[in-house]
């Protein structure tokens, strides 16, 4: 029988009984019912499954549950609440901007885009177009919302700088892959 791993997700601890090499993506979706994180390629190529691990954007399809004990994992379900504090019904400023600018088309990639964008802004509060492009290049949007995403990241940066953000933003670099 598989061992159980203690995973710290969105500020809460969950016991996940799974083989050590099972990707985090499937632990989230199938073991824990956190289906906000999406499956797109299973190979680290599309970014649909992006979550934060200790504040860094990572591809959950490439992370094994056996290696994650003791790490702080944030999924889209926990993003609104920052790092476990605050009112979870108030969206993260990036989610708010995403909504106002109507970024999503089918929306399937957008959770991953938002997770990558929030990690980028946490490490680089005023990214240039080039920095956005290189930081977001691991996130595919088959619906082609790239230009609106770029706009939304700039707008989020502006708004988050305008005063202290209402929520703690996960620390860490906006590193990809």
């Amino acid at each position, binding site marked *: 029988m598989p061992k159980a791993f203690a995973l710290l997700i969105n500020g809460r601890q969950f016991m996940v009984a799974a083989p050590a090499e099972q990707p985090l993506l499937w632990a989230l979706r199938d073991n824990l019912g956190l289906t906000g994180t999406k*499956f797109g390629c299973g190979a680290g190529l599309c970014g649909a499954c992006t979550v934060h691990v200790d504040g860094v954007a990572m591809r959950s399809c490439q992370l094994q549950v056996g290696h994650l004990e003791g790490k702080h994992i944030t999924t889209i379900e926990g993003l609104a609440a920052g790092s476990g504090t605050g009112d979870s019904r108030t*969206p993260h400023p990036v989610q708010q901007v995403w909504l106002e600018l109507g970024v999503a088309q089918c929306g399937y990639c957008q959770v991953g885009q938002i997770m990558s964008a929030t990690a980028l802004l946490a490490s680089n509060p005023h990214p240039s177009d080039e920095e956005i492009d290189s930081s977001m*290049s691991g996130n595919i949007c088959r619906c082609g919302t790239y230009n609106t995403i770029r706009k939304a990241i700039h707008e989020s940066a502006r708004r988050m700088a305008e005063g202290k953000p209402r929520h703690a933003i996960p620390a860490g670099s906006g590193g990809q892959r």
Partner: protein
Amino acid sequence: MSIARREFLAGGAAGLLVGVFFNAPLARAAQLAVPGSATPAAGDPPTQAWAPNAWVQVAPNGDIYIWVGKSEMGQGVRTALPQILADEMDADWSRVRVEQAPTLPKFGPMGTGGSTSVMGSWDPLRKAGAQARLALIGAAAQRWRVKPGECSTFNSYVIHSASGKRLSYGELAEEAARQPLEESPALKGAAQRTLVGKSLDRVDGPAIVAGKAQYGIDVRRPNMVFAALERWPVVEAELLSYNDSAARRIPGVLQTVKLPHAVAVIATNTWAAFEGQRALKVRWNPGPRALQSTGSIFALMHQSVRQPGNVARDEGNEEGAFQAASKKVEAVYETPFLAHVAMEPMNCTAEVSNGHCTLWAPTQNPTRVQMDVAKALDISPDKVLVNVTLMGGGFGRRLESDYGVEAALVARALGRPVQVIWTREDDVRHDAFRPPTVHALRAGIDGSGQVVSWRHRVSSPTPAAQDKKHFDARKLEGSVVDGASDVHYRIPAIRIEQSTHEDLPVRVGWLRGVYPNQNGFANEVFVDELAAAAGQDPFEFRRGLLAGDEPIDTGHGKLYPARLRRVLELAAERAGWGTPPPKGRARGISCTVLDWAHTYVSQVAEVSLENQLPRVHRIVAVIDCGTVVNPELARMQAESAIIFGLSMTFDQAVTIRNGEPQQHNFYDFPVLRMPQAPLIEIHFAPGSDRPGGLGEPPVAGVSPAVFNALFALTGKRLRRLPITAEDFQG
């Protein structure tokens, strides 16, 4: 009419019924709760809600439920269609609850494709809204004992201005149910519309950014298991035997199930199912189709365009005019097999019990899934219910029914709910690919630079050829010449011919934009070649070919060159055509019509070469798709279509060896990423009140605009899609 067109129109106006009373709906879904959601939605309409027709219900509390019979895949139908109905009804938009229609008879046949959602629903939904509004007025007038003509409506109220009385729609719902319904209600004119033309927010927006939107892959049913399938490597390969002992040793794997064309691994979670699939050992007899490869398939197409084909259009004396022309231009173009790679891999959830099958399907084609599942299970279609979930993209792939049929077969074998989920590799390998084409064009130009003849021969293994019962290769197959026979230029002698081949080793299907993408690519690069041969500016040359306001009769519809001329001129103006481009860059232009979508598009691409690699910096598109229901959604759709067109311009191709597709995932079937996304400027120039289609029309003109720009930049004429790194090296 081609198969493509028939199929796409299946979900159009013909399927909509109005003027019938119905009982309370069985469907569950509410605004922001999501179609196909496993939990009952809080917004279920109360049973006493009044339903003047299948598409709208008014509850006594004033909530207005609007049913959407089209599938949401990002194009915004769950917003735009209710917007049309609510406008005509003068409903308070903040009280509108959007519901997703499942396959119940009252909704008629349902399918989403061919850019028809808005244009096909425009009349029926306006009528449905107007009927409801008139009945509400009738009820108020009766209560007040005044003439209906003295009443008006505004924001869910009926108002009698002479007396200052007003009643809300909710208060009137019960009495409205006793009012007769107007068979042909008068409809609003453009000036009276309050919601149409506004950029209302997507109703699914909040759920999407919160990660709560439920796609097919997110459906969860009590006692549900997951399945991954190892399918035949080549169409019609024979399953000889399989060994599942390694698969069954994987923790979480429960059992395997044999299907006619696949072996299913059943597991308690997705990953175990995937691992089980990988551990399966299946022996196949690949059969005769495995002898084919991309090379042999293209060789057949090239051979075909060297000979006469089935004639789709024949006007004037093409042969004579060509032979007499002072300049003769000939060129051959190629386009490849393509995969759809919707962001959400194929999947479907099914449950079979007591002879009934219920599906939760991310599908563009609920009715086809219903019919094909019924056939596969040998039950009648009314025993199959398809709930339509949100979709992570469709692009035509989800017009097929394979994912539904498989899920139903596995669910029946198991006797418990199952979600069949495809790996990305399965999704690519077992796609119904966009078929390849070869085009041979020739044209004659006279001494004054006029085009006097045009011949286009196109060969392609059309999806229609897979319907063995109805297909006859010696007869004209309209789908293949879609966009070729309706070439949008005024030329005195035109001949269009078509040929096709059968029995491919892979399935082929429809992809966003269908054959007008390939034919439009060939037309618009060829016209550029003609302009160069005639020594004329490509923009002015096209303009000349679009002279006159008389519509062009293509044999199955009318095209309006004046509308195309207008978008062409506007695109040129906005892109600065005729002014020098930034250093190191060049511009190319295209103009295309999707005749069945009644939409006219012109695009200008600005390109450069960086380290011998082409780069697109800017695309300006001017679009006449008639009245725009929701400008912001429309702009996003147009941008989406252009990015889609760019993806297929660069690097995308599926190749086949020994009958098997050679691509697997995004590393060998790439899609455009953010750093490659150019600046895109969209401008709408409505040329009619009636809305046209938009999801597909801008796709076709992207590749030719880029090809033509690269010619302007380098003098090198490319004629094959996609552009690859080798094209500009050495």
